[in-house]
């Protein structure tokens, strides 16, 4: 079994003269909850969009489950993702949205829709139209849909945006149980550092498109007991100074 889920080498995305992501080389290993941290506009979503195949890199390479190039399509079938806003059909019910995804993934019939909805904390909403869902409920439904395919790797871009405090706690507990119980590797991007500090096992700090620091939660602890927020502020200030 691959130890390395994701490897990028010199990954860059340029728009005109401006680099949205510049020379990012990183590795996410199996079993990690990798927190990708950065301010708004730092390049987190652009990086994730390259990873999920929505935009093509200007330079560099991606290896997913040991596959690259033409094999990335095959590898992405093992990935579940929520990129920015949940991808849902608003005029269909939750059950129909799940069924659509099941068919898209080519899975056999017999998905326990109610169990998926229960797992994500929206039990009893199978026959409710998505347009009547709150943002938090849509996030949860999107997570249920991304779990339908039994992914080994989950990519979540700002998943707690729009969630109430209870929802944030429930989301954190759910992701932890997915990682520990199902062995799912998770990449989660956020600018809410306090939440990532309680969830992630590894961190990558992205600033002005560059990955300026990578460290584990243990290494952060060893950094003189700094919390994630202080470490982040220090790292980005040093980056400004070097620039």
């Amino acid at each position, binding site marked *: 079994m691959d130890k390395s889920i994701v490897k990028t080498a010199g990954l860059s995305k340029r728009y005109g003269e401006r680099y949205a992501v510049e020379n990012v080389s990183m590795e996410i290993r199996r079993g990690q909850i990798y927190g990708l941290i950065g301010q708004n506009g730092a390049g987190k979503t652009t990086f994730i*969009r390259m990873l*999920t*195949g*929505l*935009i*093509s890199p200007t330079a560099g390479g991606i290896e997913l489950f040991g596959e690259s190039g033409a094999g*990335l*399509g*095959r*590898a*992405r*079938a093992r*990935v*579940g*993702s929520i*990129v*920015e*806003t*949940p*991808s*849902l*059909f*608003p005029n*269909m019910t939750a059950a*129909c949205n799940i*069924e*659509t*995804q099941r*068919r*898209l*993934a*080519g899975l056999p019939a017999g998905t326990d829709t109610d169990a998926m909805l229960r797992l994500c904390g929206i039990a009893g909403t199978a026959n409710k139209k998505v347009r009547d869902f709150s943002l938090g409920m849509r996030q949860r439904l999107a997570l249920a*849909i991304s779990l339908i*395919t039994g992914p080994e790797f989950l*990519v979540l871009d700002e998943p707690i945006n729009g969630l109430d405090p209870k929802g944030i706690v429930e989301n954190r507990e759910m992701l932890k149980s997915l990682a520990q119980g199902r062995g799912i590797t998770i990449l989660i991007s956020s600018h809410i550092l306090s939440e990532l500090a309680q969830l992630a096992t590894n961190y990558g700090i992205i600033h002005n498109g560059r990955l300026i620091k990578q460290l584990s939660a243990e290494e952060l602890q060893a950094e003189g007991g700094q919390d994630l927020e202080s470490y982040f502020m220090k790292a980005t200030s040093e980056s400004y100074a070097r620039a």
Partner: protein
Amino acid sequence: MASIINSDYFKLRKNIALWLLPAASLVATVVTACFMMFVDSGAATVEGGEAVSSMDVFGFDPAGAFGAHAMFSITNLYAILAVVFSGLFISNEYASGTIAGALCIGKSRVQVYLSKLLTSSTMMLLVTLVSVLAFIGSFTVLYGFGDGSHFPGETLKIFGLQFLYHLCYAALACMLAFLIQNIVFSVSVGIFAVIISGVLTDILTAFDGFEVFAHALPNYYITRLSEHLNDPAFITQSVIASAVFIAVTTVIGSLAFSRKDIK
């Protein structure tokens, strides 16, 4: 590919357009048939007092057996329907992020593109079939069935060629929707393309030496088809021109979509 098509057909079954569009075309054909009968009944004589036959008014014998001919009177309406449905179907999926969702689980862009084109084609097949049957039914009720000796051959030809014509615009709308990714803009450009291609055909055929360029446009054939229905060479050219048009728009659209960043 099968899984994407399976998913798209499931979505289509849940989409109100599956019922709305054929219902609208049914109403449009019945209303058109009744209007044509109204025009016919009011055109009993022309200036000079000579009686005008229904054949002169319609250009065909308005019996049920020839009802499919009436499709030519509202051909561009269906082209616009093809553009609107295909444009809305695809643009809505862009807006809801579901096209992005399919790409994220490793579906290829070409497969996603072709599946949407197939879904649009299925809708247009249904709409064309409903319209042809509705015209045959309406004219049978209004004028009787008439001489059915040429009914199967002519009806099949008209159905097939009309469907191909609608498919041309469904393919064009797919290309525009995938390139433009904006509901209002892509549908507007598509409708404009339907109108302008008709005008362009007329302009090109009006000038010596330019008519050959008009042969590349589906409108050239559909507007002349009723006079050339029994001309195998003309029908063959029409099929080839439509097939080439669909192939070109599909290749351009899928290639452009393959290279496009989904933001």
